[in-house]
């Protein structure tokens, strides 16, 4: 197992470096915005571009970039969006807001989604199942920003239960902050709940009809015991990767939800970096998400072994 993990980490590193290099070259290949003729600032921008090595070969530029990270953990300085600021500090400053909103969201969406899925599966082909399944389809079909606008209009404007936007500041665990992020949490939650509900229902419905479930019942287990001990564990082989996927989403953020509720997160950072050709921010966010994605993939693979003991990682047989 350990050997398998180490091997995967080594592969991860190679894949990470390849993605990093490809991203670096591709973003640098994008043509720089034309500088306005006769604008006096054109001269200084040309000088700056020259100093930043934009005319140097890509390999040389990449080497300087890597050297900065390895020797000083220097991810570079923002040249467009946050001029002069260290991009790592900008990224880290914005990450908590995204994480806190998404974390609160999944903390209640996963249990609720799974619970609804279990309930629908257990009540298969009853009005409960039909209601949950229909609502699930409806909710999944509507993008989260639609809920965001409805929630903001109803709960914030008409009923005045919550502030319109996320509270400023970094007191992420204060009551005032929590109250201010309830609307985005709700907006993010509906789709996730529906997703987990649908997956759980589908998997559990299938498992519940398996022969080993019949065996469990004939051995004398109650329906609840059989469902919890055997059926749920089996269907989690499919559900758990989805949970890990949601955790990756915690860090990724949602561009639209963040905009609507004025959440100072990382949702639109990568897009803004590409639009403005802020190379260092783009590279940091790309590398960050690549690393998280690769690590999550490894964690998901390993988790299979814990959920279903029949699955063995790295086994040659």
């Amino acid at each position, binding site marked *: 197992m350990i050997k398998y993990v180490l091997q995967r980490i080594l592969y991860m590193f190679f894949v990470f470096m390849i993605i990093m290099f490809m991203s670096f070259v591709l973003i640098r290949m994008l043509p720089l915005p034309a500088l306005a*003729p006769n604008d006096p600032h054109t001269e200084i921008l040309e000088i700056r571009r020259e100093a*930043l090595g934009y005319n140097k070969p890509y390999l040389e530029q990449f080497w300087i970039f890597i050297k900065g990270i390895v020797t000083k953990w220097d991810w570079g300085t923002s040249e467009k969006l*946050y*001029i002069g600021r260290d991009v790592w500090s900008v990224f880290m400053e914005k990450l908590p807001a995204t994480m806190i909103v998404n974390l609160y969201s999944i903390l209640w969406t996963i249990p609720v989604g799974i619970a609804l899925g279990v309930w629908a599966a257990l009540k298969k082909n009853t009005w409960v199942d039909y209601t949950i399944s229909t609502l699930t389809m409806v909710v999944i079909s509507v993008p989260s920003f639609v809920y965001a606008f409805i929630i903001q209009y109803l709960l914030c404007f008409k009923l005045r239960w919550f502030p319109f936007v996320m509270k*400023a500041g970094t007191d992420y665990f204060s009551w005032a902050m929590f109250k201010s992020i309830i609307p985005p949490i709700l907006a993010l939650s509906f789709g996730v709940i529906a997703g987990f509900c649908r997956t759980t229902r589908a998997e559990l419905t299938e498992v519940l009809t398996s022969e080993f479930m019949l065996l469990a019942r004939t051995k004398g287990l109650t329906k609840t015991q059989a469902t919890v001990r055997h059926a749920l564990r089996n269907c989690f082989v499919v559900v758990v990767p989805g949970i890990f996927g949601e955790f990756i989403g915690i860090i990724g953020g949602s561009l639209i939800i963040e905009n609507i509720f004025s959440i100072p997160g990382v949702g639109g950072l990568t897009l803004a970096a590409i639009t403005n050709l802020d190379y260092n921010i783009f590279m940091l966010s790309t590398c960050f998400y690549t690393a998280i994605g690769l690590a999550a993939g490894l964690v998901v693979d390993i988790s299979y072994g814990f959920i279903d003991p029949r699955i063995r990682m790295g086994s040659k047989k």
Partner: protein
Amino acid sequence: MSTMKKLLAVLLALAMIVAMAAACNNGDSGTTTGPNSTGGGEGTTPPATEPAGPTYTITEFDPNAKYTYNDWTTSIAGSWNVHNYQSENSNEIFQYLVDSFYTFAFNDELHPMKDPTRTPFDGYVIIPSMASGMPVDVTAEVAAEHPDWVPEGATSGYAWAIPMREDLYFDTGYHITANSYVEGMKRILDQRLQNYRSTDVYKNTYGIVGAEDYFFQGQENFQSFTDMGTTYEEYIANGGSVDDVFMDIGEFWGIETAEGKTYESITSEVEIRDPAVPEGADEDYVSTKYLWDNYLGPDSVSGYYQAGYVNQYAGTVKSYPADVNYDDVVGFYAKDEYTLVEVFKASCADFTLFYNAIQDSLILVEPDVYDSCIKQNADGTWSSTYMTSKETSPSYGPFSMTEYQTDKLVHYSRNESWYGYHDDVNNVYKDPEDGNVYRLYQTTDIDLQKLDGVATAKNMFLSGELIGYGLQAADMAEYQHSERVFDTPAPTVFFSLLTGNKDGLDAREAAEGFDTTKEDIQTILCPSFRKAFAVSFDRQAYCDETSPSLTPAFGIFGRTIIYDPETAAYYRDTDVAKQALCDFYSIDVSKYASLDEAVDSITGFDPAAAKELYTAAFQESLAAGYITDADNDGKCDQTINIKYAVSNTSINDATQLRLDWYDASLVEATKGTPFEDKVHVVGECVGNTTGEEFADAIKAGTCDLCLAGWNGSAMDPYNLLQAYTWDSYSYAAEWYHPKQDMLTLTLNGETVTMSVYDWAECVNGNDVTVDGKTYNYGTNNADQETRMLILAGIEGKLLQTFTYIPFANNGGKSLLSWKVYYVTDEYNAVMGRGGIAYMKYNYSDAEWADFCAEQINANGKLTY
């Protein structure tokens, strides 16, 4: 008697109580005795700080009340370093943290204009702010000490001494003196930092003498002919040598020489690897001389010479001496502790001096904080975190930054160390309503938060959480008649930019896939078609239907363009400007009671004339062979699909609305003509661009139409002419040649004919020689009436190109919260309505919260 004594005692006691109350009173009804109201005024020198003799009392605002200005924006800048900022968003952040030597103030009894007929708050004056008096011309003195700093023989206009107040401080406690500005100048010109705004200091027309030499010391600097505002041919014609011409190989090839230079002489025979050519193929190694002789130069063997290309990639290189001493070179120094001397590259005075030359707020920084923010990056470059956070943003303006969260919020509170809160001379005004004298800035706090959508902003505004809300088209029905709606005009005119690039249109028709039997595009070139197009659109309807912020436009210059900054007079309000429009739109002024009535009758929309012109255009196009009428039915066989350049990767709803409107207008206008249902507008996405690629498509003729406009030069329409007459700026450079378009004007009894280009040059202060006589109608050589005649003449000529078809004046309509009010409702292009400095409050924050709660409980929202 005892009763009298008792009464006297009671009266005395009452009097003492009243006196004590008055002495202790710090409420909003309190007053402070002020000095003589002699401050400011054009050309006057106000007393330094404490002139004797109070003649008015200042009504103080309640010091215990909090007045918060809640603003919002769609984007909060991530950096607002005054030395390095690149966008208006940054200016939005630092504007409250800085101040200037001189400032604009509404004219009132305390700050009167020279013209006695002006009524309070209908104009503005320039008054000292951080300066203690008006600048003193020290050109002669400086010329004697530094003869190389001013042109030989010059005795005025180049060097100015600015007396400074002595009570200036940063909120860090740093005391500001003349030397502080010198330190700021050294830092903005710090070669390591390559500050974006350094060019404003060394390169502008009114740049500081010697700043360029200090900035580039020990370096060589390549400048293309385009950057220099000239051409290769002009350079050679003016005595320039080919030996001094270099090619920008860094831009051209993306490479540098073995010595690390990105430019190479066009006479150099050193062979350079051309990365675009495979190794071993012909011309894989070429010298710049070879390239110039064979391809680029005017006498190239291939004949490929293109002036625009050469001017972009060729230029000259200047070498700067190394190890220069700041004091010996830069004309920006402290004469004494509180007197700063600035020596400019060009002569300036009055408005030009205050508005264009003195860029003090750009220069001053808190040196200790600034130096602590500089660091060297891994790639060897240097950068600064100055003014990127609350901690690194020292203020010497009216507010201090007390909170900043990236992409979320900025909060400001009063900067108590700002001199203005204790200045009884310049930072006061007489309220036109109640006649009391108040200090500027009743606002105690400013909250600027980032909001993405107008829907959120609108709901927050209606909940009392924002001070203003810009109305959208959908809001007009509900709010357009509200007493809280304010119209804010902008100087920009949006025009329908119609291509005239024949080569581009020919190329499109010749391209594979273009079926000339079914389609045509060259008809756009026909003069009658262009005229017909211009009168096919009901501009008023467009503005009403699409955006409440727009109003119909009929001229090249907008309604708030000021031609005389000294008097704040609008060009569009002048008779010559009105007459120019009447002439262009063929309005017979004699049929109207006045010129005003005549110009008011212009709509720019004439369906009958359009139909006649389309019919004439049909004949022109047939004659030119652009279109056919094979069956002689008097109808065009081809469809003309006019491509509208969309600056995006997809067409959004707003753009589609515009396209549909254009198309429907043309369909209606061509009904009953040979082009009936044959002229349409279709969207063509040219990519999601931040530049002007959409306009480039029109220039090149790959697209035919777009809505465009020029920003800036709101107080200098003469300067704005360059946007139309300089090839490097002009959208129409490929088909409209201002140097060949002649214009005859009669000025002061003399009839003069010269090209539009030359008129534009000489009205901007450049010498132009015609038939051996030199003309210069610059600001120092001609009166405003003469200059305006030239401006109106050029405007008429530009309109006649039917390339710039005026469409709409930019502007905005917004709702203002009940919480505040403007001291004047009249909009002034320079002062606006006074901004935060003059803003008054109906409610303090606490009172406002109560008011909102009451209103919302009753109505569900605030009503406007």
